[in-house]
């Protein structure tokens, strides 16, 4: 659904522009191409103001005014200098490109973190899907604008505008300055286009210098579709037609993408469509005869035409919506990967090839265990957005935008699914976080700026003293600008190098720029990565050869094309690295915890052929250091391989550490294992679980913990407080999840539930001491003395005892304690405590003593002393009432925490959770013996009830 609503939204936003075209084209028969530039101008003005802190709605009138100014100039040139409207538009559009660059200061302004109308809307969203919510607002806004424009066209002034387009001679004869009216009309039309640009920039989350290219054709298509659907003399209907036309056009684009059409073909289809519609609505209908005429006449009848279009639209929409509703469960377990490239340039296609080859190596086979969708925006910026929408609609699981523009689009559209970008020079510049580890939670990727500093160092090995170097670049590309900045920073330390710059705006300028630089007596061309320059690299090579000026560059691909020295990253490798990140995410890691990676594969290349041709001597150091070279036209380079990544393929090793055996700990481990196995099966992650048990021995425990750290386990899970403590003191790095722990704060691994040792997290399950003592009071209203034995070397036991002391005070008991450190002392302690005259015997969370419950239960029963404990299962061993936690539930819960860690959440970010699922055990036989009545509600709440067989 998002795809279609997204298309409607785009349609409405572009409708502002289409209405502008309606004014120039339909009213004045003047297809104003200025809008290609004005659209970006509106976006540019809006984004710098928004970044500056302006209200996103207040920027709209400014965008309108600036757009109008551009239109005014076109109109002025057209009318005053009698220059063909189309030509005047081209002139202004061309000039606007530079103006837009100046307004923006750079070629791309991200608005992701700024307040836009979209973010304002989403902050008051009552819970609807965001696109739908935006849609409501846009429809309302467009309704208002529609009425406003239509009413304006009905006023005396508006009528004069329309009459001017219809018959300028007549209007002039009525005392109207045709020129002025035309200028005014073109101006407000461009004002509307400016608004459209300002809105689209906010909607897509950035402004880019390349926005708006080709707008005129799409705009015309919208106007023509509108006219075809709604034929009427009423301006209200005409303007409405334009709006609907714009929406239908965007739906058609979405449809084309949805059926797998190449968006590149879309332009041709649009052009053919516009041509066809022009022909069909014009000469063809009137002059043809026979069958076609009949068809035409049938179509001409207005209502039928509307019904036909409505019917078709409903049919198509119905088909898709229906498909989604009827077969929503067409579940596909294969992971869907959506790859989007901004254009067909070398750098991007290489990245993609690297991605695919490495994905294949990692075992992903398209169609077999994954689905890979790929689309190319062919240099058209809004198409990136539509592709992303399409991918969302296709339920793509992982998005792989290759290029800065595609990443920007993905970043803006996708908030809840993982994005792995590749080949982005500077992701921070486009708002993807502030550092490699501090970034939006759903995104990671591969990036890197050119190693220009290193390249200059190599240059310095060959040229010493005062030298000049030449650089050619197109300031329109954000990547280029950031590369140039790096270059200048690097040169700051070397005042003897002077930089000679030449800028170009397209590939045709490159030759002249190179010549100009050659004339400035430079020692070498040191070329930063720039799409425009590299598209015309041969021209630089030509100048290089004719003037014996070598080329140094950061683009490794240029080695065989005629550069002398290359030092740069392999974009193929960028794709390979991205493949690994994708793999990690598919295997369950969260992008949030995957730091952005810098490019890893580097080529240091030397072209011996060029060196000979330019008679440049190459120092031995460089000859030795180069890992790739061209000699006699043959390129030799090492194979691209990433360092093997065992991290990903090795199964995850998990150590399960239990300090001693007890039914309670066994239960929690069992619950844990069960839960983990189902997760592992679902995620196709392999876990290798290894269980360690210290059997109550501290030194064994200690050595187990050390071994776990040394064996480099991926994760540790501990059961019981002691296991936690031992492990936590030895291991400060392996992610550690603990459970069956009474109080981690007292155990010393945390100061508060959320502030704990960095590498661990887990569950706190205190024995319900207070609840148990309350229960004692309920069952034995007249009892006075409680006796407790506990092991002073167990922190947990101490904690329970302290709680028991407080609870006893609260419920009017007197507490008698006997402490032991080994089980050897148990008998004595028991005898001593029994002889002190206790009414109730209580063992709480003491691991050591819990192991010998039956030994204690028997004498207590003989002495007719009710035995309470904090493990429900103890009633099977002879206790009277035991209230504890359900440790199999605790184990399951711990597994959930563990899964979170495996998925990539850093343990330090997971607060320790207090988790006590009550579990009650009662021995009814003993109840009879003690002569107490147990209420039925309590019996039914109990998990374990012991009765006479």
């Amino acid at each position, binding site marked *: 659904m998002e795809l279609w609503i997204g298309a409607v939204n785009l349609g409405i936003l572009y409708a502002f522009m289409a209405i502008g075209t309606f004014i120039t084209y339909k009213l004045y028969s003047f297809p104003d191409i200025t809008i290609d530039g004005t659209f970006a101008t509106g976006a540019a003005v809006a984004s710098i103001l928004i970044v500056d802190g302006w209200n996103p709605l207040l920027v709209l009138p400014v965008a309108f005014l600036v757009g109008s100014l551009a239109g005014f100039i076109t109109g002025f040139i057209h009318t005053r200098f009698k220059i063909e409207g189309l030509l005047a538009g081209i002139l202004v559009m061309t000039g606007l490109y530079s103006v837009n660059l100046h307004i923006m200061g750079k070629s791309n302004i991200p608005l992701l973190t700024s307040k836009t109308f979209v973010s304002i809307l989403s902050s008051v969203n009552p819970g609807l899907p965001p696109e739908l919510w935006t849609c409501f607002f846009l429809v309302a806004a467009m309704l208002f604008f529609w009425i406003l424009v239509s009413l304006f066209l009905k006023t005396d*002034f508006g009528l004069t505008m329309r009459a001017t387009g219809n*018959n300028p001679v007549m209007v002039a004869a009525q005392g*109207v300055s045709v020129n002025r009216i035309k200028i005014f009309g073109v101006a407000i039309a461009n004002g509307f286009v400016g608004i459209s640009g300002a809105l689209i920039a906010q909607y897509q989350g950035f402004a880019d210098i390349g926005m708006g290219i080709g707008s005129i054709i799409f705009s015309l298509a919208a106007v023509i579709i509108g006219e075809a659907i709604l034929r009427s003399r009423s301006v209200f209907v005409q303007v409405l037609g334009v709006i609907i036309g714009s929406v239908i056009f965007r739906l058609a684009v979405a449809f084309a993408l949805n059926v797998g059409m190449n968006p590149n073909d879309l332009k041709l289809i649009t052009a053919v469509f516009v041509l066809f519609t022009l022909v069909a609505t014009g000469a063809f209908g009137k002059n043809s005869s026979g069958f076609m005429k009949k068809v035409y006449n049938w179509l001409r009848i207005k209502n039928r035409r509307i019904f036909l279009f409505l019917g078709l639209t409903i049919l198509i929409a119905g088909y898709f919506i229906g498909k989604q509703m009827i077969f929503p469960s067409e579940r596909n377990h294969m992971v869907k990967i959506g790859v989007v490239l901004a254009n067909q340039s070398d750098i991007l296609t290489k990245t993609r090839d690297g991605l695919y080859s490495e994905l294949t190596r990692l075992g992903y086979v398209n169609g077999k265990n994954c689905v890979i969708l790929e689309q190319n925006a062919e240099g058209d910026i809004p198409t990136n957005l539509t592709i992303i929408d399409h991918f969302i609609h296709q339920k793509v699981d992982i998005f792989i935008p290759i290029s800065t523009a595609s990443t920007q689009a993905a970043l803006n559209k996708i908030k809840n699914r993982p994005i792995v970008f590749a080949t982005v020079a500077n992701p921070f510049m486009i708002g993807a976080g502030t550092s490699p580890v501090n970034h939006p939670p759903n995104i990671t990727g591969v990036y890197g700026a050119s190693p220009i500093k290193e390249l200059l160092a190599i240059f310095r090995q060959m040229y010493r003293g005062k030298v000049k170097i030449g650089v050619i670049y197109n300031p329109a590309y954000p990547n280029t600008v950031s590369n140039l900045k790096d270059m200048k920073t690097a040169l700051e330390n070397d005042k003897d190098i002077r930089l000679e710059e030449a800028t170009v705006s397209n590939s045709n300028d490159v030759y002249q720029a190179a010549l100009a630089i050659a004339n400035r007596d430079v020692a070498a061309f040191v070329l930063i990565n720039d799409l425009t320059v590299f598209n015309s690299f041969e021209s630089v090579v030509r100048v290089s050869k004719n003037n014996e000026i070598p080329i140094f560059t950061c683009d490794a691909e240029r080695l065989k094309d005629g550069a002398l020295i290359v030092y740069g990253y392999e974009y193929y490798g960028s794709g390979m690295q991205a493949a690994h990140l994708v793999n990690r995410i598919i295997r369950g890691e969260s992008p949030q915890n995957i730091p952005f990676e810098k490019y890893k594969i580097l080529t240091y290349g030397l072209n011996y052929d060029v060196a000979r041709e330019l008679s440049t001597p190459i120092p031995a150091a460089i000859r030795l250091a180069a890992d790739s070279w061209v000699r006699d036209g043959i390129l030799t380079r090492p194979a691209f391989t990433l360092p093997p990544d065992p991290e990903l393929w090795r199964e995850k090793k998990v150590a399960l550490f239990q300090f001693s055996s007890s039914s309670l700990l066994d239960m929690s481990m069992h619950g844990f294992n069960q839960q983990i196995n189902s997760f592992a099966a679902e995620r196709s992650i392999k876990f290798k679980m290894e269980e360690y048990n210290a059997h109550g021995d501290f030194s064994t425990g200690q050595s187990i913990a050390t071994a776990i750290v040394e064996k480099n386990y991926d994760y540790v899970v501990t059961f019981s407080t002691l296991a936690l403590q031992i492990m936590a003191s030895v291991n400060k790095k392996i992610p550690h999840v603990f459970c069956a722990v009474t109080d981690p704060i007292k155990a010393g691994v945390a100061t508060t539930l959320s502030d704990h040792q960095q590498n661990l997290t887990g569950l706190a399950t205190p024995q319900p001491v207070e609840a148990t003592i309350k229960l004692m009071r309920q069952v034995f209203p007249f009892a006075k003395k409680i006796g407790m034995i506990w092991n002073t070397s167990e922190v947990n036991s101490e904690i329970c005892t302290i709680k028991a002391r407080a609870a006893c005070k609260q419920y009017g008991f007197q507490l008698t304690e006997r402490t032991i450190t080994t089980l050897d002392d148990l008998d004595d302690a028991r005898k001593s405590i029994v002889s002190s005259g206790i009414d109730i015997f209580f063992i709480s969370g003491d691991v050591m003593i819990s192991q010998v419950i039956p030994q204690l239960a028997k004498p207590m029963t003989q002495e007719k002393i009710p035995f309470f404990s904090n493990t429900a299962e103890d009633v099977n061993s002879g206790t009277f009432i035991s209230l504890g936690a359900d440790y199999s539930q605790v184990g399951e819960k711990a597994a959930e925490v563990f899964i979170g860690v495996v998925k990539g959440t850093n343990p330090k970010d997971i607060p320790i959770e207090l988790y006590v699922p009550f579990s009650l055990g009662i021995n009814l036989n003993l109840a009879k013996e003690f002569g107490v009545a147990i209420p039925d509600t309590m019996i039914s709440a109990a998990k374990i009830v012991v009765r006479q067989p």
Partner: protein
Amino acid sequence: MISISNINKVFNAGEPDEVSALKEVNLIIHEHEFVTVIGTNGSGKSTLLNVIAGSAATDKGIITIDGTDVTRKADFQRAKYISRVFQNPYSGTAPGMTIAENLLMAFFRGGARYPVISLKGQLKDKFRTQLASLDMQLEDRLDNLMGSLSGGQRQAVTLLMAVLQTPKVLLLDEHIAALDPKSAAQIIRLTQKFVSENNLTTLMVTHSMKNALESGNRMIMMHKGRIIEDFQEQDKKNLTVEDLLSKFEDIRKAEKLTPELIDSLKNQYI
């Protein structure tokens, strides 16, 4: 009302197809005069009207209307004083707009147009009564497109538009030439009616000598960019179609002579 002195108009100056459309033309038209203009094809009649209306700039000379020098003013600026009807019935109206909308354009002739909606109730009623005066059953078709009207009807509406705001000068350039005889007669009748009702200063170019003689109170005859005859009211009354024909015959004969002789003849003649 209109004073034209020493007007020259050359088209395509300096090029092989250079044409002197107006040569040293002097003409004074008084208030309430109804001047008919005749002349051979290409003699400069339309150019004269265009120069007065401002849609063609003069090369030389001064034009004043109602005492104001308008020589350097653009056509739309002169529209305050002047209204026009063209030969082509398609030129005077906007075919893609309704009759009422066209009339509205003329209603504001020479004035400002604001973004307010004036075309409603009262004004429409006014337009309706004025259309009724054309006697062409157009009063019920206010909201029909101009393009749906016949040539005669359009020319009638154009004429109505021209006098909707009483102009100081009315310029009619062969405005019946493209019409069938019946419509032409109708339009001429309407023209005479409007001119006399409003006592308009009028310049009417016509190719019909009969019309030229029957309408107006003064007549000028043009040839090769010059005014070669100027008949005041009394002389005009006595003229017949035959007289005019013989004048044309003279010119035709003269044209067989050498250019030098023609010039000398003309000089003598005027």
